[in-house]
């Protein structure tokens, strides 16, 4: 599995804030997804109801997950495919390698897949002499740069057009040096022509799956470029990687989820290619793979069932939560230190790799609640981050100063009279210190806060005394 760098969040975030290239890229991208999603949602009056239905479909599926997975597997096999059940990342990697070796594969094309990132498929194949070729435009440049995705649907979110041009010039040495890149379209065209031969030469195609359909034994991918379809159509072997919570019961259930997915993700009504794959090439077919494998991965998910994190398994990986997150918008995806960034990552990463390995990731949030309000399946992300913070505290994973400060606060909080007295004195003191100015530009012991913004100075009385006064006034009326 990819190494977890989440405990470095604070340092990574500070670095990200000072990275002018990254800040430019975030600035360019910021807002684009938000406006498109808002327009798409506004154009479909039923959207809110579809969210409730989506949540219910996923809850129903999770409550009967064993039944639906077995049904799915039986239907894959009926269509000539094979399902490989894998408990761990290691088992999944070995399974993929064994399939590739069984056909003597030299190169493998890949559609964009976050589960592939989670499992570390590319490194494993490369280590064993098989060349994986990422074909999604964003994933392709990241493979050239030896980077990981910084966003779950727009992997190269952190790059600017200049980066693309520089990398293509550096690495596509087979093309004339003096070629011009006037438009983004020139970059897209170069990637298209460079990857065409790779598609045609590949022995195996590996894709992810947005959904699995129990009723028909199908895997579904949703893309705009068409690279995923070329990946799963041209080679002799198609491997679909999917985690166990991707299954939905019927095609009708999938239709509801698809109405939510593209709108929440890119703000499209429907993605360009939504493709259902069911088994192997039929006897009379002129194209399509001769082998169809589904690698069904647990890798920690069954442990989430029955816990306060079960609802996280509803996630359909649309990225609306990170697109709307002020923290993600300020620092980008790499700061989060593992495969899944943003609010969904802050909940999922500790669930999959362990809270002891993720540092203070569940604290990388302002708790503004925007993520939950845009989630197509209504996952209570802030509540779950709070659960993780409780676990951090219980397991003594929070820093000493924070713990002693909390203990100090708890001492007062448990003694309301003392608490009121202390806050009244504190507020009075701050009010005097501010000397009529509205805010503090600097303050001892709060340098971390005032470095980036002013601290508003208290104006007058505490909440409790204002509240008591208002209650008394109401009683007199």
């Amino acid at each position, binding site marked *: 599995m990819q190494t977890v760098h989440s405990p470095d969040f604070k340092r990574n975030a500070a670095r990200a804030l000072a990275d002018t290239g990254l800040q430019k890229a975030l600035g360019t991208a910021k807002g684009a997804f938000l406006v498109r999603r808002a327009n798409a949602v506004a154009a479909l009056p039923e959207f809110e109801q579809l969210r409730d239905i989506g949540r219910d479909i996923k809850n129903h599926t999770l409550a009967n997950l064993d039944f639906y*997975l077995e049904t799915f597997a039986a239907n894959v096999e009926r269509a000539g495919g094979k399902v490989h*059940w894998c408990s761990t990342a290691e088992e999944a990697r070995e399974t993929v390698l064994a399939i590739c070796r069984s056909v003597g594969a030299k190169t493998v094309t890949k559609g964009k897949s976050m589960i592939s990132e989670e499992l570390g498929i590319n490194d494993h194949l490369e280590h064993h002499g098989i060349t994986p070729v990422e074909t999604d435009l964003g994933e392709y440049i990241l493979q050239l740069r030896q980077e990981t995705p910084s966003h779950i649907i727009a992997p190269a979110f952190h790059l600017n057009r200049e980066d693309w041009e520089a990398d293509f010039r550096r690495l596509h040495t087979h093309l004339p040096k003096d070629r011009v890149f006037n438009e983004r379209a020139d970059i897209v065209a170069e990637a298209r022509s460079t990857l065409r031969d790779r598609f045609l030469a590949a022995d195996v195609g590996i894709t992810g799956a947005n959904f699995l359909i129990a009723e028909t034994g199908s895997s579904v991918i949703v893309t705009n*470029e*068409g690279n995923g379809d070329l990946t799963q159509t041209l080679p002799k072997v198609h491997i679909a990687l999917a985690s166990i919570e991707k299954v939905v019961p019927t095609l009708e259930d999938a239709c509801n989820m698809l109405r939510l997915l593209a709108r929440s993700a890119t703000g499209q009504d429907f993605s360009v290619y939504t493709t259902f794959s069911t088994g192997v090439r039929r006897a009379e077919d002129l194209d399509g793979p001769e082998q169809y494998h589904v690698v069904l991965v647990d890798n920690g998910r069954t442990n989430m069932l*029955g*816990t306060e994190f079960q609802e996280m398994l509803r996630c359909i990986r649309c990225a609306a939560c990170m697109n709307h997150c002020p923290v993600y918008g300020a620092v980008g995806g790499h700061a989060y230190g593992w495969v899944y960034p943003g609010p969904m990552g802050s909940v999922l990463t500790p669930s999959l790799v362990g809270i002891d390995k993720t540092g203070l990731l569940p604290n990388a949030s302002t708790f503004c609640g925007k993520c939950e309000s845009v989630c197509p399946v209504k996952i209570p992300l802030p509540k779950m981050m709070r659960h993780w913070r409780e676990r951090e505290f219980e397991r003594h994973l929070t820093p000493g100063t924070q713990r002693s400060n909390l203990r100090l606060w708890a001492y007062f909080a448990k003694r309301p009279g003392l608490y009121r007295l202390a806050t009244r004195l504190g507020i009075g003191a701050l009010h005097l210190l501010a000397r009529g100015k509205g805010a503090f530009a600097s303050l001892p012991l709060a340098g971390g806060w005032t470095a980036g913004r002013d601290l508003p100075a208290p104006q007058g009385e505490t909440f409790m005394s204002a509240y008591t006064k208002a209650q008394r006034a109401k009683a007199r009326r």
Partner: protein
Amino acid sequence: MSKEAILNGIRRGLKRGPLPADQQAMLAGRLASHPRHLQPARAQLPRPQQVALFLRNVEKEFGTVERVPHAGAVPGAVADYLAAQNLAPKFVLAPSPELWAMPWSERPMLEFHSGRAEATDLVSVQHGFVGVAETGTLMLPAAPTRPTTLNLLPDTEIVVLKASGIVAGYEDAFDRLRAENQDALTGGFMPRNIMFVTGPSRSADIEQTLELGAHGPRRLHIILVDDDPAAIQAEHPDAPHGFDQG
């Protein structure tokens, strides 16, 4: 074995054993009846408006459309489109008897072969199965007569679609498939592959700005054959005469 480990892990998490028989029967019943969920009102329209919505949505997603009054007009529409795009009059034609029966010889300049697409094919002529009005989406189920590569390898894909094939939502498209398709391998209705295609290929991976023509076709052109009298609006200039257009 990991299958048992995963299934047991699920049951442990859900704090129960294997589902009792009556619960399994209930779930099997849900699969068999595959109930529909809420259908968006936007596509629940009289036939002429439904077809118009489909065409509008195709164009919104950067596809292009031409409407012809009967199948006999398709070869001319293909030839004229290729000429207008300044493309060579050469293409690979889906091996469908219905497409083959069209009067291609009336346009002797057209050069074509039949089969799947290869890397060298620049234009394909495919036949659509169903068009979904809700989002302007084509449903293209794989079949010996409808190779998947035709939708992927050429720069330009032309899809011939009958107006009678236009439905409101994706569920209606699947219902057509359930009713009309039988898979040789499974005996069910699902073919190996179904592509739902909405406009030409694109990517927004560079600075979240849309560029057309990523890996699939750069152009998607739909030739709609007006075979459905109920779908034709009175003001349609190419409407065949003699139909009841009420």
